[in-house]
């Protein structure tokens, strides 16, 4: 019985292949975009972790010279004193024009935690220490000229990095001394202290936390939001396809039940069928997701590299957990999309009639009811925006806003078409508008999907673009000096100050201490009074005469994160460390997750806490940047302690263009899913719509003309949907910028509008609608007359 019933149930799909395809494709695409984004995020996070751990700098202490390098003799002396230290050569080499970082290691003394390459293969160690062997990421390996030693590619290294043996590195870098020594985590007993043994070396603590992962959070949040939206949009298709398939099979359910099939058995069979479909579509979707991720990753990698300096591999590694989570999300999506249909089937009287047309044609009353719920949700989101707090609330708000807008869409379309028909003067336009209106319920799910896709495009696009505008402007203000230099201790700072005296226009010492700020760890900076700050510092709010008062020690500046977190306005008191200060001003500080404050340098010194950071901002003519950089490196300051403002800015601008590539690609994909939803809905409706079209055809309209009108209708609906998508998208952008970003990162970005983007998107939506209507329209234009004639002869 079960088997017979099951085969009867699934025979439906043979008769309705388009429904099957739309169901599978919708689910597969939803899964693909979701899991694709997940794969990109996972790959990036893995890269951050690898970068943080490539030489164990995330967990191992190291010794660095105060100046210059560490000699071989000193290294051997340290080893012979019993310290387990491993030498590292670190320098840059030129690979046909691009620079790569070359790191030389001694595989025999490298602690296991810091072993960056695998030498366990046949002959690996011998080749590494004796013949010379370079390890590099495939992208970097491709740039290494044949004149260098042989290259072994490995995905475990970040791009731009080459690892080799000290013997090889010493030849390539023309050095016999080391940049640093890595200390093994466990050392022998009874050792002579390093401070006696090597007083000229600095013991550097492992780099705590993963700054890059923290900085890139907002970028990944955007990707995730996109993935989630695409998934939601895909579910609209699935929901529509499942709903129709269940409705059309109601006579079959009735028959099966009449033949004695239990309701529970029927539901089990249907659930099994959905499960099987979900597994098939999920597998397909994960495979597609892999392709999506593989295609997008190089651009994402470029974005992250430029924006955050995060080295992310452009190649994707497969992870079984990721495959499984992709499948799980497909199953979950199917469960969500099919729940309503299953529930309805479970509660259906045996003899209820099938009404596939009624399924497609909802009454105005139900449209109004739907819109009322939607309006309620939008109102709720407004309440949440006004009174809610927290990141979760932010996302709930987003959900309410989007679902609410989607639910009001059908009524809006209905009303808009009604209004338009007032201006219609020909029979054809009357009919076209009236018929379009009647199509709204049948297409509403697909149009909601389109609405969500477009709103997401506008919202996320606006957020990203606003971010770009704000961030680049902020960079200009914040990076007013040409060079930023970090000394490693007080002595070096004093030396640098002496060295730079007279070499630069302004030498601005910046010191900071780690301190509790209003009960949370943060940094307090000390600066001197200078025109640079007065002219450029990005203050969001300030008391009058702020800079003079700061210099006089009258109070402190706090960053926006701190101000928002503690509800501080200029004039309020703030506790920095153990002392109370008056807030003189609030400055924007994008990308910093922690609270921060600025006081005068004198006050910072007076606090008595150990100074942790010895930084200088150097103002000098652009033309002397190279000269001063050389001066500093010659004096022994590592190159990474010198940062050039122009390079940082150029990077950022380049990066944002790359960011747009990724956002753009995701936009197109989301829109594509919505177009697919429209296509499958139109195909499904096209058969049901024949009774609506046949009389008009009989009255003298050709099928070609009718098909053109079908196309026009889809475009009209898309255009109206786009109209409502604009405010929804802007609302979305506002929520992202003013609520989600603030909750997630502690800073608020001003919203900037980009109307030219909207026009582009509007056109894209119309094209998408036209493309999705093209096939059903073509099918209509070439339909045999007999099909239409049958309408008049057939029973419903």
């Amino acid at each position, binding site marked *: 019985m079960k088997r017979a019933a099951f085969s009867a149930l699934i025979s439906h799909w043979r008769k309705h292949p388009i429904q099957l395809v739309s169901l599978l494709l919708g689910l597969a695409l939803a899964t693909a975009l979701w899991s694709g984004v997940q794969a990109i995020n996972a790959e990036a996070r893995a890269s951050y972790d690898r970068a943080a751990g490539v030489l164990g700098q995330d967990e191992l202490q190291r010794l660095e010279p105060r100046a210059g390098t560490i000699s071989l003799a000193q290294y051997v002396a340290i080893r012979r004193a019993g310290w387990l230290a491993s030498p590292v050569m670190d320098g840059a080499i030129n690979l046909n024009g691009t620079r790569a970082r070359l790191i030389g290691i001694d595989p025999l003394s490298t602690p296991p935690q810091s072993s960056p390459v695998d030498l366990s293969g046949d002959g690996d160690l011998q080749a590494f220490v004796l013949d010379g062997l370079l390890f590099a990421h495939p992208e970097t390996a491709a740039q290494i000229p044949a004149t260098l030693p042989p290259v072994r590619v490995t995905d475990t290294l970040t791009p731009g990095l080459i690892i080799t043996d000290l013997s090889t590195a010493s030849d390539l870098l023309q050095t016999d001394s080391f940049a640093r020594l890595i200390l093994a985590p466990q050392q022998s007993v009874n050792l002579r202290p390093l401070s006696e043994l090597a007083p000229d070396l600095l013991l550097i603590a492992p780099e705590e936390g993963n700054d890059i992962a923290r900085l890139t959070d907002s970028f990944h949040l955007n990707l995730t939001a996109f993935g989630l939206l695409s998934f939601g949009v895909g579910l609209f298709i699935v929901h529509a396809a499942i709903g129709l398939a269940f409705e059309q099979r109601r006579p079959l359910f009735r028959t099966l039940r009449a033949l004695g099939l239990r309701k529970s058995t029927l539901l089990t069979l249907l659930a099994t069928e959905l499960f099987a479909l979900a597994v098939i579509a999920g597998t397909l979707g994960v495979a597609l997701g892999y392709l999506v991720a593989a295609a997008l990753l190089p651009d994402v990698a470029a974005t992250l590299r430029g924006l955050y300096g995060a080295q992310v591999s452009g190649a994707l590694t497969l992870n079984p957990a990721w495959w499984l989570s992709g499948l799980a999300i497909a199953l979950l999506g199917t469960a969500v999309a099919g729940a309503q249909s299953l529930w309805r089937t479970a509660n259906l009287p045996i003899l209820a009639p099938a009404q596939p047309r009624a399924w497609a044609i909802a009454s105005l009353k139900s449209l109004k009811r739907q819109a009322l719920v939607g309006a309620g949700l939008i109102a709720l989101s407004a309440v949440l925006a006004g009174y809610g707090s927290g990141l979760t609330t932010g996302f709930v708000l987003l959900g309410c806003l989007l679902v609410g807008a989607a639910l009001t869409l059908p009524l809006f379309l209905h009303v808009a078409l009604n209004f338009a028909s007032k201006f219609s003067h*020909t*029979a*054809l336009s*009357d*009919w076209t508008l*009236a*018929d379009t*209106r*009647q199509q709204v319920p049948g297409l509403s799910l697909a149009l909601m999907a389109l609405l969500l896709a477009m709103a997401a495009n506008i919202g996320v696009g606006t957020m990203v673009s606003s971010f770009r505008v704000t961030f680049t402007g902020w960079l200009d203000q914040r990076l007013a000096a040409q060079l930023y230099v970090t000394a490693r201790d007080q002595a070096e700072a004093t030396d640098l100050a002496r060295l730079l005296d007279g070499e630069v226009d302004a030498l601005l010492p910046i010191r900071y201490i780690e301190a509790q700020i209003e009960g949370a760890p943060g940094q307090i900076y000390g600066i001197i009074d200078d025109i640079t700050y007065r002219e450029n510092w990005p203050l969001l709010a300030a008391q009058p005469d702020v800079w003079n008062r700061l210099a006089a020690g009258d109070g402190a500046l706090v960053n926006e994160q701190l101000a928002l977190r503690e509800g501080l306005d200029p004039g309020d008191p703030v506790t920095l460390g153990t002392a109370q200060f008056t807030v003189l001003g609030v400055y924007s500080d994008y990308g910093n997750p922690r609270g921060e404050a600025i006081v005068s340098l004198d006050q910072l010194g007076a606090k008595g806490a150990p100074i942790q950071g010895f930084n200088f901002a150097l103002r000098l003519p652009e033309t002397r940047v190279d000269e001063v950089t050389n001066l500093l490196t010659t004096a022994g300051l590592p190159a990474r302690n010198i940062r050039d403002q122009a390079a940082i800015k150029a990077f950022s601008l380049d990066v944002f263009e790359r960011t747009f590539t990724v956002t753009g690609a995701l936009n197109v994909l989301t829109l594509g899913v919505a177009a697919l939803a429209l296509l499958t809905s139109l195909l499904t409706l096209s058969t049901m719509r024949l*009774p*609506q079209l*046949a*009389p*008009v*055809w*009989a*009255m*003298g*309209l*050709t*099928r*070609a*003309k009718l098909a053109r009108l079908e196309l026009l209708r889809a475009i009209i609906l898309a255009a109206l949907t786009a109209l409502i998508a604009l405010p929804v998208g802007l609302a979305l952008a506002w929520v992202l910028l003013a609520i989600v970003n603030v909750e997630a990162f502690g800073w608020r970005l001003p919203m900037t509008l980009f109307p030219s983007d909207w026009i582009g998107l509007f056109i894209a939506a119309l094209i998408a609608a036209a493309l999705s209507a093209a096939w059903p329209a073509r099918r209509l234009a070439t339909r045999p*007359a*007999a099909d*239409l*004639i049958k*309408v*008049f*002869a057939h029973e419903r």
Partner: protein
Amino acid sequence: MLQVEKLTKTYPSEDGQQTVLRNVSLALAAGESLALTGESGSGKSTLLTLVAGLDQPDQGAIRFQNHDLTQMDDAGRADLRRGEIGVIFQQFNLIPSLDVAANIAFHARLAERADAAWCAALATRLGLEAHLARYPEQLSGGQQQRVAIARTLAARPKLVLADEPTGNLDEDSSDTVLDLLMSGVRETGAALLMVTHSLRQADKLDRRLHLSHGQVSG
């Protein structure tokens, strides 16, 4: 006005080609009415759709006024239908998305022959004035067919084609509807070609042609 000569029409079916019409000829003068009778499957409905230009015969000619429908393209036949021919089927004649008033005026407006007074008069005559703001699905079968008749007459076609226009109605309303159609046709001077299986109804028309297995008999 209408000459049908030696029409043959085959349809593909599961047993291969099935010939529905074989060498059927007929003629109809202006203002004349002709009943097509025959059992189910005799090909009478197919003949009607060919005359309406909704489909093309395999062989033969259909001359209407000075046109040969078989020599015209789809657009030409559609133009002819829009302007000169009114078709009433057994069901699904109406446009679901338009209300009764709009349905009645629709064909006339397509033919650019709309006449509000005439439409109103037809609505009154057919007893539809109370239903003008309703939608087809809110009407009974008889009411729907009256709307279809009103719509056809409103366009003042030269030829009215009706395929079992009362086939879904009970006998009483069937007679009423047919009478309304006949009087309307007569008043507009149109010719009427009507398919029916009812001899009683056929007798109300000027002439009768019987089809059997796709051929004219008797």
